[in-house]
């Protein structure tokens, strides 16, 4: 039984195709475009042809992420928090806390041993605590966004960023750049600022090991490092967790389908 999870994020749309809610057949991502449905449909069509599948082979499609309501070919939608938590648990079964840091905002959730969300908080009102800020900083410091984490880790004297607002922090960084402060110190300061913000959200729900990080920022090595230092706890992190939302959605789709058919999910 093949189920599909589609996670429409602010920056990237991710897709996961799974067999029986337990085996990942494929994961792929594309930049989210103006037309959410079209981006998702293309990803879906490409995934099918890559795996040699027909649309009728797919039994259930679950959409998640901020643009989930726009996916016209979905069967159901689930919230990002639910999907990410399920995805985190799929990759790390011992997960009790999930920290999802995306481009737009970040979310913290506490889950029980079954993977059910017990408590959650999100930074949805304000962009501080989202990865989008780091993209801007990468631009101003002249680095590729994929490299800034590694550069930041080489910093000896991180410069604190005093403002919370991403827009103001951007101006602050521009000033630091013109003052010729070493780039790695500015970048580390920017990472510390994002993590500082995210930690407030995380602490509101309470941190319980194991902590798993999901979302676009799992690809940035400085984030887990700084989190570990601040929390005195090593978080689970791996590049797969970039797809946690899509994978979680596909798992939830499988469970939902089994329930509908009166079967017990494995």
């Amino acid at each position, binding site marked *: 039984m093949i189920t599909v999870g589609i996670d429409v994020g602010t920056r990237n749309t991710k897709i996961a195709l799974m067999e029986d809610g337990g085996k990942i057949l494929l994961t792929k991502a594309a930049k989210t475009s*103006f037309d959410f449905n079209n981006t998702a449909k293309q990803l879906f069509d490409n995934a099918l042809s890559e795996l040699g599948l027909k649309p009728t082979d797919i039994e259930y499609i679950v959409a998640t992420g901020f*643009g989930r309501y*726009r996916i016209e070919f979905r069967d159901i939608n689930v919230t990002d928090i639910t999907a990410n938590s399920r995805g985190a648990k799929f990759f790390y079964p011992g997960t009790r806390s999930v920290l999802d840091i995306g481009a737009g905002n970040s979310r913290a959730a506490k889950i029980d041993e079954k993977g059910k969300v017990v408590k959650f908080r999100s930074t949805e009102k*304000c*962009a501080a605590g989202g990865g989008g800020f780091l993209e801007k900083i990468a631009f101003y410091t002249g680095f590729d966004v994929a490299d800034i984490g590694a550069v930041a880790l080489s910093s000896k004297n991180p410069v604190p960023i005093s403002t*919370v607002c991403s*827009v*103001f922090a951007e101006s602050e960084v521009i000033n630091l750049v013109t003052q010729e402060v070493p780039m790695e110190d500015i970048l580390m300061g920017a990472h510390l600022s994002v993590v500082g913000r995210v930690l407030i959200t995380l602490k509101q729900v309470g941190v319980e090991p194991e902590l798993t990080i999901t979302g676009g920022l799992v690809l940035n090595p400085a984030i887990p490092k700084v989190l570990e230092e601040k929390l005195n706890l090593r978080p689970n992190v791996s590049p797969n967790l970039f797809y946690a939302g899509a994978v979680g959605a596909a798992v939830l789709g499988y469970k939902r389908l089994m329930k509908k058919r009166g079967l017990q999910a494995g």
Partner: protein
Amino acid sequence: MSEIYSVGVDAGSTYTKAAVIDGEGRLVATSILMTGVRINDAAKKAFNDVLQKSGISEKQVTILVGTGYGRYNITFGNMQVTEISCHAKGAHYLFPKTRTVLDMGGQDTKAIRINERGEVVDFCMNDKCAAGTGRFIEGAAKVLGLSLKEVGELSLKGKKPVKISSTCAVFAETETMEQLAWGNSIEDVLYGVHTSMAVRSIGLLRRVGIEPELTFTGGVSQNVGMIKCLEEQLNMKVNTSSLTMYCGAIGAALFGLEKVRASQLVAVRG
């Protein structure tokens, strides 16, 4: 005695503006350019540009006053005055009956209540974040690939403002994208963006008290969509002109002129 020329330079977050006022208090010329990253360079350029437009040389400048968020980065000025005082003075100069000033710039929005002499009585501003500033409109414009002028004009064609739920200026981009994805027209989305900004700034204005006449200054005062939405939401006429974006620089130059006159007085008395 040689003629007096007072120059005001307003280093804003997005644009740097300059204005020259002569000894009679007449506005001689104005100039504007992008601030960019080197604030002092932008200020120097705006200064040179406005001198050229005024047809005077640097030696003829009696005093130079800096204002705006980058005023302390202007290394060649004689004095600095806060932008609140300058905007108040500039608005009062352009519209003498002004009692309330709404200054909307690229990264900040201020509500200022002034007295009949153009002095600040009370003020209030967004100090914690960029919500409710020109940055929000910039975000919407960026998504649409339009200029700030175009988004203002297009919003006038909107029939019904779309409800905008975000306040964070960074989220203006995703919110615009989302609203368009829901099938709303660009015009209605932009009408909504401007309306939400107007409502937000009225919240700020109420904290200082809205007393007519209201003068709208700063870069966003050049946006026709914003003027319309403000008048709609406030139910009153809003003063604005092509010069209101120079209010900070004009006010700074006027402070310079006052200073020169005061020192001449001292000189005469002495």
